């Protein structure tokens, strides 16, 4: 397990290098001259040239990249163009809000998705199964900002049970987490159902029944453990979708998280902020998928080092 962990950790290195490269190139691939944009529209030639020098844009690309990396490793992601404050401290607090939102949403979607999927699979073709699958299809097809607006409309405005916006108190968590978690729950439910249906017809399930194992244990011990393997993959991938969805959810519920912050930064053309945020979110995604890989190994002993 230890060797496996190290191996997987090493395998993330090329990904991280790739991410930093893309993020670095963002500065250069966006239309327009970054120095011009940063110096402001009314800056003259000299000011733009000074800005270019200050940003190191006159250096060769590899020098620029090297200094970008060495700064990033030290936690220096540059300064915000608008506020002038360090990007790292601007991102810091907001980052945890988004992580919290994503974490609770993932928990919700795993919880609901697993239960719905198992129930659906064990009562295949029943009314309940049909109901769950139709519901899952809805959950999957609904854009989450729309779902968020509908939830606000009903639960916050019409019956006034929950606050319209904000983040922090448990009541404030509920609507955004449902908004962001629904699509994931639907995907996990469908995945769990099909995975369970496949596993349930395996020979070893028949062996378990032939042993006299009570049906409850056949499902939750013998079948689920095997069925979870593909589901875990989906959970990992879903997390990336979740981070994207967080942008809209945070906007709808006026949550001061990283997602909304990035959108604002894009509108303001505050590139250091965008760059830093993308880098941090991408790293988070890589980290989550690293955890997914580790849990594979715990679930499935057949996975060796390759």
């Amino acid at each position, binding site marked *: 397990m230890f060797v496996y962990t190290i191996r997987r950790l090493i395998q993330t290195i090329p990904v991280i290098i790739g991410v930093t490269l893309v993020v670095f190139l963002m500065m250069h691939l966006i239309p327009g001259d970054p120095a011009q944009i940063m110096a402001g529209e009314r800056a003259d030639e000299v000011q733009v040239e000074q800005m270019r020098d200050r940003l190191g844009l006159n250096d060769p690309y590899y020098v620029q990249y090297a200094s970008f990396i060495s700064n990033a490793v030290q936690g220096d992601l540059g300064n915000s163009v608008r506020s002038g404050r360090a990007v790292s401290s601007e991102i810091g607090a907001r980052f945890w809000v988004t992580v919290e939102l994503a974490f609770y949403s993932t928990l919700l979607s795993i919880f609901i998705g697993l239960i719905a999927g198992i129930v659906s699979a064990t009562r295949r073709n029943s009314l309940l199964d049909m109901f769950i699958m139709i519901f899952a299809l809805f959950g999957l097809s609904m854009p989450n900002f729309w779902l968020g607006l509908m939830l606000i409309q009903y639960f916050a405005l019409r019956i006034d049970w929950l606050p319209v916006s904000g983040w922090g108190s448990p009541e404030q968590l509920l609507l955004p987490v449902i908004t962001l978690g629904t699509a994931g729950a639907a995907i996990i439910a469908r995945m769990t159902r099909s995975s369970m249906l496949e596993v349930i017809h395996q020979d*070893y399930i028949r*062996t378990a029944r*032939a*042993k*006299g194992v009570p049906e409850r244990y056949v499902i939750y011990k013998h079948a689920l453990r*095997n069925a979870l393997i593909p589901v875990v993959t989906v959970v990992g991938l879903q997390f990336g979708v979740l981070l994207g969805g967080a942008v809209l959810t945070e906007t709808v519920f006026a949550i001061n998280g990283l997602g909304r912050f990035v959108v604002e930064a894009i509108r303001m053309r505050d590139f250091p902020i965008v760059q830093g945020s993308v880098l941090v979110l991408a790293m988070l995604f890589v980290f989550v998928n690293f955890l997914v890989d580790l849990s594979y190994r715990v679930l499935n*002993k057949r996975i060796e080092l390759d």
Partner: protein
Amino acid sequence: MENPKSIIKVEELQTSFYTHKGEIKAVDGVSFDVPSGKTLGIVGESGSGKSITSLSIMRLLEDPGKIKGGKITFNGEDLLAKSESNMRTIRGNRISMIFQEPMTSLNPVFTIGDQIAESYMIHEGLSKKQALRKALGMLELVGIPSPKDRLKAYPHELSGGMRQRAMIAIALACNPELLIADEPTTALDVTIQAQILRLINGLQEELGMSMMLITHDLGVVAETCDYVAVMYAGKIVEYADVDTLFKSPKHPYTVGLLQSLPRHDIDQDELNVIKGMVPRPDDLPEGCRFAPRCPFATRLCEEKLPSLDDIDDKNQVRCWIYNDQWDGPEVNVKDDYRTAQSD
């Protein structure tokens, strides 16, 4: 033909699958019994209903399979009348089963030890620690080398033969009265087959179990069984003790099966095969189900299904040839089979 004391008695068992195309009769009125301490072989080609028969006894049929009729008596208890939870106390405890595919019959995410121990925890209420200790004993009994390490091994770390030994350990853990072995050696190498058969036979004697051995391999039957039931298309066509069956087979299908075995004592250019195919279970012939492939078949055979009758005190045969109503020429099935088939 009556066996004095039988561990399990199956009477007129009918098992069908209900699909959107209609009812498929996989097992159609099968009766037999397994004498206490003895081994009954059930022989037949794929699709003859032999595995479905054993799953019916265990009541492990999956949808859309259903037991439609008949009676299964195990040690005087009516198995078909039992509740599902009562049935669970029998499965893996008093009746155990070994399956064909050792590669896929063990759960890949649990250790061998856990999978054997589970039986003891369910049926004998042992703690995990006690159960694992007994599991270790079982691994020793089935002859797995360095059993202590194997206890912690996962199925993928074991070879096919070792996995089948582990399966046997699971099946025999609670000292069952009846062991149903469904093609236990089919998926294994020939050398391993012999080892596993010897192991099963030895343990059967040691533990005093009765056994049902399901196979398509007559060689395996000759080596291990006391009685044989030959199944064809959902029905038993011949039932006899093993010596009688091999020495004087009566049903043309049995004769065909025996003659399709490769022989070394005579010069043979090619193997004798039974012409044609097993009928599809959703498209069974009206009369005798073997009639389309039988070299002796007459109109009577094609029109009416024969019953399974005692023809002497040793054989039960389902064939018109041995009936008073027989409308064909007099034949000796065993001697005339080959010439009749080549005509």
